[in-house]
């Protein structure tokens, strides 16, 4: 798996400045709350800026993975006998480390600088939400195997974001559906900025992440196994 991780980093650095796009859009996502509100900023503003910010970063991830399939360079991994598990996990490792370093860490540091409150829970729970959205993007890209596959995570953002934004601004009364919407990551994100965190809410964030990631992993694995004659065991 190490060689697949190294190869993916090499490709990102040398092909069409993919890495620059991922880093640039991630940092742009981090700075998005400042674009909206200037430097007078707190946890709530950060929380409302995360959905749009992470969308920038994840679109670049989806396109970078999609380009790998469009150029057919992904076939080299199959022709070298790599296992489907190794391929999927190597992609997760590469893009998680990039998003962690260039989105999550700067976001956390800026939050601690601009908000003096106790933000540890917020930071940890945001990490889980970001990972859930990142894994969804990676798995969808692996399933679709085209750059156009990045459109599906984008569509998900739009579908989830609209009611979440209307709810957070008070324009829509969704109090009856609140406990249902709390299962969705963008709504979770906005709620983290405004609400006191309860144990059931934390559980919903964790369980939602685990179930969605596991289901999407299985779909990605089945997609690989059906399309190509890949090894089923780890290398």
């Amino acid at each position: 798996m190490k060689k697949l991780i190294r190869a993916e980093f090499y490709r990102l650095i040398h092909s069409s400045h993919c890495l620059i796009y991922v880093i640039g859009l991630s940092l742009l996502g981090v700075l998005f709350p400042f674009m909206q509100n200037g430097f007078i900023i707190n946890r709530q503003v950060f929380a409302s800026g995360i959905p749009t910010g992470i969308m920038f970063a994840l679109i670049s991830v989806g396109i970078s993975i999609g380009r790998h399939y469009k150029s057919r360079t992904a076939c080299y991994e199959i022709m070298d006998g790599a296992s489907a598990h190794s391929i999927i996990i190597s992609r997760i490792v590469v893009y998680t480390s990039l998003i962690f370093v260039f989105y999550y860490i700067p976001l956390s540091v800026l939050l601690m600088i601009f908000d003096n409150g106790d933000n540890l829970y917020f930071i940890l729970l945001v990490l889980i939400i970001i990972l859930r959205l990142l894994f969804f993007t990676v798995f969808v890209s692996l399933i679709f195997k085209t750059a156009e596959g990045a459109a599906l995570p984008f569509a998900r953002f739009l579908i989830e974001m609209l009611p979440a934004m209307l709810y957070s601004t008070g324009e829509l009364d969704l109090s009856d559906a609140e406990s249902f919407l709390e299962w969705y990551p963008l709504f979770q994100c906005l709620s983290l900025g405004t609400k006191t965190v309860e144990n059931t809410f934390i559980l919903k964030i964790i369980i939602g992440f685990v179930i969605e990631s596991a289901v999407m992993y299985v779909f990605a694995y089945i997609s690989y196994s059906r399309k190509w004659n890949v090894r089923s065991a780890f290398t």
Partner: protein
Amino acid sequence: MGQTVIEIKGITKAYRKTTVVDNFNLLVEKGHICGLIGPNGAGKTTIMKILAGLTRADSGEISFFSGREPIDACRSKMSFMIEAPIIDYEMTAYDNLAYLRYVKGYPDMGRIDEVLELVGLENTGKKKCRKFSLGMRQRLGIAMALLAKPEILVLDEPVNGLDPEGISDVRAMLKRLVEESKATILISSHLLSELSELCTDFTFINHGKVIESLSAEELRVRCRNFISLRTNDINRTAEVLKDRLAIRDFSVCHGDIIHIFEQIDNIERISKAVTDSGLIITLLYEEGQSLEEYYLKKVADMNEKADKG
């Protein structure tokens, strides 16, 4: 018989209702160059994709290196170039090779410059592959196939788009690879003439089925020119050929026709010697066919059978 490194048993593959590979069998021995010859759409690429793991066969079995290791593990010792070369057009030739070096975990960085020089792309520098000509892309594809010094090389129409000099270079390169590293090559083409000087074995394929598998020597024997001779006394004619003309390389076919493989240019001398011996010639002519004619006849025969069926 040497060690079998590629074994395909009864592979069948259909796309919807069209069967593109039909109960296909093939054995390739270590150190051999096996030519898979067939017209466009014969199923050559599909067979190679199945070997590479890029397509699943509906039925049948494949094994590499006599089945000692799982198929996927064997693939790391193999290289494939199937259809158009797989290249990231936004990278340079060097970067493409460096990327593949990481995928294959090949340790020697110096090998990249070596293969670039081997295929004549050492001076491409920072030029992106999207600016390469068709021939340059093909050369890079071959360099990528050769990068990790594979034990088995599977090449699908590798000389497509190359000029005559390029084709000759590729042939020499592949011959050298087999001589130096005892690699095994499975190579496809729709033109027998492209591979006739290179391959040690040939498998003709059409409509996904094997028409014939034979060695280069067998093919040459079947394609060489000869004189057909029939007389009123076949035994005496054989004696005349041996004693008066010193011809040793001939055979008697169907009981009454002699095929003479020597002194084909001396048909008049043979005729004179036979008639001077009091024999009556009832049939005398030269026949034979080129490799291409032989192959085309096989394909035509199969098509005819299929039409009748």
